[in-house]
């Protein structure tokens, strides 16, 4: 068995110079210290992206954008073998990817890995985060169920409130004055063509930068003498540990996808009132809450405009941090940057929690009784599918 493998390797090696790649990978090292665990989060994010790419391609086999969108997702969820698993995997992987991006971004921030010469890594990472959020937003509408419809409608009202360009932008994205089948078509094109075409090359650039500059040392490690620092070879040591992390990530994804399958809900009906407590996904909740707070404080569109200015300013500051704190000398700027990061993290957590708490309170105060399901309305088979009473 060993001989044919060796022969195949020799054949490929002659043509691709594999030995050189292995030699390079063995020479490359990864620092090992008490904060090393944070190095794995970039790889975990990549894994969740790949899981989405694979499950997304499988969903494409059956998904039909346009008026059939809901019906096609219903078929995927209820009729096609393991369709529910693929859809659930795709949705959970999207959420887990965003969680891991946030963890990765803040770990990079607090380990000061944005400092020179890694500025482009930081900037490309921020753009990748924003694109991932747009991936999430555009994908959320595709099943065209009740929640997705109203959440998208509310979500698009935010840019529409901007003076002059707002309504034009919103109409362009919606494909008209209302969220409808044309919006689904546009979001679909954005989700499966435009975003991947931009995301994948940028991701390649980001990974190339990591490869070029290597893993950054946190300030506590940099303060130690070079002889006291430890490192492990990238190949095979770090790679094997990275693969182990991928396996754990796969398992977490599988447990969530299997035990908490993504709900489909009812088909969107624009004539119906919006469901109680309609809100965006968790990764937009902070912005949503800030806009709501400013909207309550200030009259008319002023609140929303101030809110949008607040985000834009925050984002600009977040982006120029590498220029403000470029050196490894541990000076005052470094400390201020750390405080700024802590403040940003605190605002993000508090406003997200505040948003959920506010929605929960609104739902409780607006407790309209749900219409009863009439006895004759559903056959037992439909009952199982729509609301199965489990044994």
């Amino acid at each position, binding site marked *: 068995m060993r001989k044919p493998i060796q022969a195949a390797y020799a054949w490929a090696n002659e043509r691709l110079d594999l030995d050189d790649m292995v030699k390079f990978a063995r020479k490359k090292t990864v620092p090992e210290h008490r904060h090393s665990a944070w190095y794995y989060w970039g790889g975990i994010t990549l894994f969740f992206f790949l899981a989405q790419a694979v499950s997304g391609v499988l969903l494409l086999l059956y998904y039909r954008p346009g008026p059939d969108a809901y019906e096609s997702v219903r078929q995927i969820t209820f009729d096609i*073998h393991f369709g529910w698993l693929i859809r659930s995997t795709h949705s959970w992987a999207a959420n887990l990817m965003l969680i891991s991006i946030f963890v990765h971004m803040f770990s990079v921030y607090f380990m000061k890995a944005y400092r020179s010469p890694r500025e482009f890594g930081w900037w490309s990472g921020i753009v990748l985060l924003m694109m991932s959020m747009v991936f999430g937003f555009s994908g959320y509408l595709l099943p065209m169920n009740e929640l997705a419809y109203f959440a998208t409608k509310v979500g698009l009202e935010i840019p529409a409130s901007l003076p002059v360009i707002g309504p034009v932008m919103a109409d362009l994205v919606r494909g008209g004055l209302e969220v409808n089948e044309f919006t689904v078509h546009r979001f679909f094109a954005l989700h499966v063509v435009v975003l991947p075409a931009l995301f994948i090359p940028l991701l390649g650039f980001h990974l190339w930068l990591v490869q070029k500059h290597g893993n950054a040392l946190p300030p506590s490690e940099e303060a130690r003498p070079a002889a006291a620092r430890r490192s492990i070879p990238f190949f095979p040591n770090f790679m*094997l540990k990275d693969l182990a992390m991928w*396996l754990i990530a796969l398992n977490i994804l599988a447990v969530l996808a299997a035990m908490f399958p993504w709900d489909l809900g009812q088909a969107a009906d624009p004539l119906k009132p919006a469901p109680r407590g309609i809100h965006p996904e968790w990764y937009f909740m902070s912005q949503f809450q800030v806009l709501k707070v400013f909207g309550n404080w200030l009259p008319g569109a002023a609140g929303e405009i101030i809110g949008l200015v607040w985000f834009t300013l925050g984002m600009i500051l977040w982006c120029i941090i590498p220029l403000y704190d470029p050196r490894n000398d541990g000076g005052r700027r470094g400390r201020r940057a750390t405080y700024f990061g802590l403040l940003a993290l605190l605002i993000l957590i508090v406003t997200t929690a505040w948003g959920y708490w506010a929605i929960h309170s609104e739902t409780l105060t607006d407790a309209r009784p749900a219409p009863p399901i009439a*006895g004759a309305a559903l056959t037992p088979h439909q009952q199982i599918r729509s609301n199965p*009473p489990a*044994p």
Partner: protein
Amino acid sequence: MNYPFWNVPHIGSGWVIGLIAIFHIMISHFAVGGGLYLPMAEQKALREGRQDWLDTLRSHSKFFLVLTGVFGTVSGVGIWFAIGLANPEATSTLIHNFVFAWAIEWVVFLVELSTIVVYYYTWGRISNELHIKVGYAYAISSFLTLVVINGILTFMLTPGDAWLAVAGTGREASRFWQAFFNPTYWPSLFLRSAVCVSLAGIWALVTCSRIDGEARPQLKTDLVRWSAKWLLPSFIAMPFILGWYLWLVPESQRALLQLGMTTIGTGAFTQVTRVALIMVLTSATVVGLVYFLAWRLPLSFGRAHALAILLLGLVVTAAGEYSREMLRKPYVIGRHMYSNGVRVSEVARFNRDGYLPQSPWVPANATVLQRGQIMFRGECMACHTADAYRSMKVLLEGRDREAISRLLAILHDSKPDSPYKAFMPPLVGTAEEVTALGDYLESLARPAAHQAKD
């Protein structure tokens, strides 16, 4: 019906058994596999003159003794205590059939406990040959506990035609051996033995992870790799044994696994498929992690790695046991007794004469709602709670009284094409009792509407 109902609010009695059982199985299977690991490792160490191995094994045997001798035994007794409370009818049937088996179990259990104590306290005090013999005596006795209990557990899934032919006649014990060596006995024994061997390796890796790789590189490399090898037999054999096991499971039970392929549901209708998927995937993850972290990088194999593998092992155990339990649905003893303790043979009588008259727990002047509540406790509470796990409030939310009646009628008629038949026992009782249950369920699902009617 002859026993009081054990009402465990929010989680239900099933989860009390489940929570104890998951930990117990993790430890008791380690007790069997680890029983083989210790004397085999000791023998190898003596043959190769590895004193450093012997020191580590001594420390491992202390951990083994405390974990299996204390937590294993206490949780084992806890399971039987809990099932006696949760499903007394089924426990009574098991005791009446298998009292002889339990007697054997207690004898081998005492031998098992005694030999492990002797094994640990005689390190360096008796000859090496005798010490190894004590170790193997422990291994044999602990394996025999599995041999015995496996007969009782598999009986609950597949009691076999021979036993079913005499079930309810009072002559059940005459078919003891047929019931014991029932259709799924052998594949289950092999399956559990494979799990035992794997768990021996996983727990040994926990001990190995504490060895300082920088100070003792050779010891750590050798012992980590040798322990990792213990996962190999089950990795290779498990798919075949699992296939053999499923092949012998009745077709009706196997069908439960297929429902989750095409559809989802929030309830247990598809849960067994989903949990079984997790079991298979997590097993593969455990083997992958052991290969990447232990076999390939033994020197840097640390406590966090070992605990991650152990935790995933716990997930596999939990998923496996849950799937096995769910495969029995709607029975607690296959084709003989439903999960709510109603015997298959009693259904017609309960429908004709009523369910409640058989119970000593119905007050003479019970209101309709009280009668409905007793019906719920007797027939539903084995699997459902009022307000949390498999909550009736959630499952019936939004349904009006007519919808509840229709659902109960479907459950009562239990026709062959009923989608509930695969998982749920038929609802038994007279029309008046079913109405009382419906009223009680409405009071849970729509308390305001129910009170308005009163």
